[in-house]
């Protein structure tokens, strides 16, 4: 087990940031920690890394207690802080090189690893430049390179894509997947539902210092019983079609919209063949059917009654 947390409690004054939280993460996962701002994701990470005092709880990283096994375990972990932690007056190369040294790399091996890390985040051609001149996305990527240069077994990336352009964002998401394919376990706290859904193999949903649900995204979606939506793509749908469709009892709702006809049905009750027959009978040509899958946003909404982003 890469991470094992039991009954963790962390308070800031009166406020309980982590509330009797338990969590275990297996090797090889990209583990998403999904929760809105202030859910306690960063506090959880900081507690686990021993960066903040906790009121109570048992924590193990890579099978060891961090406090008692300091540097041994630390070498196996790479941490990408939520806020940029780079020295603006060192070049990209020097930034990465400094931390390579701190993690005990030396000589030729260090040089290779630094080059590799910069290459990996796509900054190889900018290695001699100062981050002062970097875009937000480039700084974020440097932030990552500094944390992976020592090739850790576990990488914790706290919201690495906040405030950056889509291109950098995609590149970061791709690189997370690549790291994972190399056998590195990744813990990925984020409040971006789409990102977590796109790359994570397992997800825990966090709210107010607690984990309220966990599993693969499919498992999470099954947790809730909601309606599915589809849009029937036809040219100029008329009232006749609408009435005919309404006769199908599995359909909960039928609305004419700009694109075509929006249909809603209960989960797993998709009356596809009958819909197609009616379209045909009414003399329309079916151009397509867009089915809207349930997403984690719905899951979160159902579980907490809140949206992920305000």
């Amino acid at each position, binding site marked *: 087990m890469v991470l094992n947390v039991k009954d963790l409690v962390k308070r800031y004054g009166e406020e309980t940031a982590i509330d009797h939280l338990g969590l275990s993460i297996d090797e090889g996962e990209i583990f998403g920690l999904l929760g809105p701002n202030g859910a306690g994701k960063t506090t959880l990470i900081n507690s686990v*890394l021993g960066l*903040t005092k906790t009121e109570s709880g048992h924590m193990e990283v890579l099978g060891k207690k961090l406090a008692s096994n300091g540097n041994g375990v630390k070498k196996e972990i790479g941490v990408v802080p939520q806020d940029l932690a780079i020295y603006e007056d*060192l070049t990209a190369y020097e930034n990465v090189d*400094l931390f390579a040294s*701190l993690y005990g790399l*030396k000589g030729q091996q260090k040089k290779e690893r630094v080059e590799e890390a910069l290459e990996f985040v796509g900054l190889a051609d900018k290695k001699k430049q100062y981050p002062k001149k970097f875009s937000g996305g480039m700084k974020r990527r440097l932030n990552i390179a500094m944390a992976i240069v020592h090739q850790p077994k576990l990488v914790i990336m706290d919201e690495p894509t906040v405030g950056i352009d889509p291109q950098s964002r995609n590149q970061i998401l791709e690189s997370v997947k690549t790291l994972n394919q190399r056998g590195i376990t990744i813990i990925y706290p984020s409040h971006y539902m789409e990102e977590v859904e796109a790359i994570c193999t397992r997800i825990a949903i966090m709210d107010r210092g607690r984990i309220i649900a966990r599993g693969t995204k499919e498992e999470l979606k099954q947790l809730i019983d909601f309606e599915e939506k589809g849009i029937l793509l036809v040219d100029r749908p008329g009232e006749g079609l609408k009435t005919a469709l309404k006769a199908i009892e599995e359909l909960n709702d039928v609305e004419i919209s700009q694109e075509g006809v929006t249909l809603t049905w209960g989960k797993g009750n998709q009356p596809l063949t009958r819909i197609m027959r009616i379209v045909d009978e009414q003399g329309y040509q079916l151009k397509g059917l867009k089915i809207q899958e349930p997403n984690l946003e719905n899951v979160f909404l159902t579980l907490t009654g809140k949206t992920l982003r305000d």
Partner: protein
Amino acid sequence: MKLWKIAYTTFLRKSRDKQELLTSILLPLVLILILGSALQGNFTSQTLGNIPVGFYTEDEGPGRESFEEFLEHEEIREWLNIIPVSDYEEGVKMVNDLDLLVLISLPPDFSERISQGLEAEIEVLDAGVSELYPSIVNSIVRSYVQGGNLYFAVGSGPGQWMGNGNPGEGTEGATEVQLIERNTFRGDNEPIRGIDYYAVTMLVMFVMWGIFSGSQSLTEDLFTPMKIRINTAPVSRLNYFIGKNFGVLGTFIVQILTIILFTKYAYGVNWGENILPIIGISLLLSFVAISLGIAVALISPSENASTSIINGFVVVATYIAGGFFPINHGEGILSLVRNFSPNYHAQRGIFHFLYGTEPGALTESILWLLGITLFAFVISLIFGRRRISEYL
């Protein structure tokens, strides 16, 4: 290994800071030149009328009375601030510490020798920081001696020459009283020039501005996201911090060497034959600056507050040490307060090394500087614990 990497990287970063280079190296070089050439000019006229002059005598005779009366004259009081000194050694020490710029002393047998027609001496001892002060005092004393006042006083009646006084020298007969001019700092009677003085005080002040570096070396990592990286890296926080301060110390070495060597060769400043002890004191002072910087970072509630504290402290510490111009401490509160000024101890140590007659002064300065460093560390430990744990 890691330690040196951290030190080297810190040094590298600091040396890239152009503004820092400008203010820590170029500015002192310019100021030394400006202040050094101003010492003989403007600068002194402001302090005229307040030249602290000590007066010491064990003579009980009429010669003393007359001289004292003379010093009471309004015209003279306009120029000199006469401070009676009860002990000769004490007076010399005050001159050495620049509490007095000049010490006038009459020997115990002053009246007697004059009444016997022997040659008498008035000694004028100066600190050698300026040519102007002693020359003013000398000419005042000379005017007294040559004016023949003494003879009227010591003699039995007005206009009557004393003992074997040689009338052959006419009214110039008064030259039998010798004016002995001495300099406490160096025997050769050559005063310290303004530029020599300011090279020392400005070096000291600009090393003290390094408090900012000490403070920053702590705050930039402790109170920023960088602390996450450092705390999760397999290197102890203390180790990292020590490495950082070695790097900062490196920048101090460059600063100190540049200032000393440049002023030595370009301005001809007297740094003595062997500059190593001066580098040593300066480095010790940079230690003081770093430790004070850490303490300030830990006790001040905000970045702004710490900037104000540091600015205020350095200016006051420089002022009371006589860094901007020699000042009169007297024996009052100022002479106590100046002990809290690291500048004072560093300057005293350097001046004594270069010109001094008190061999103990250097050791004393070093002990004071070490004491201040220790004090800063104690403050850091007391306030630092709470502050650091708050931030984690």
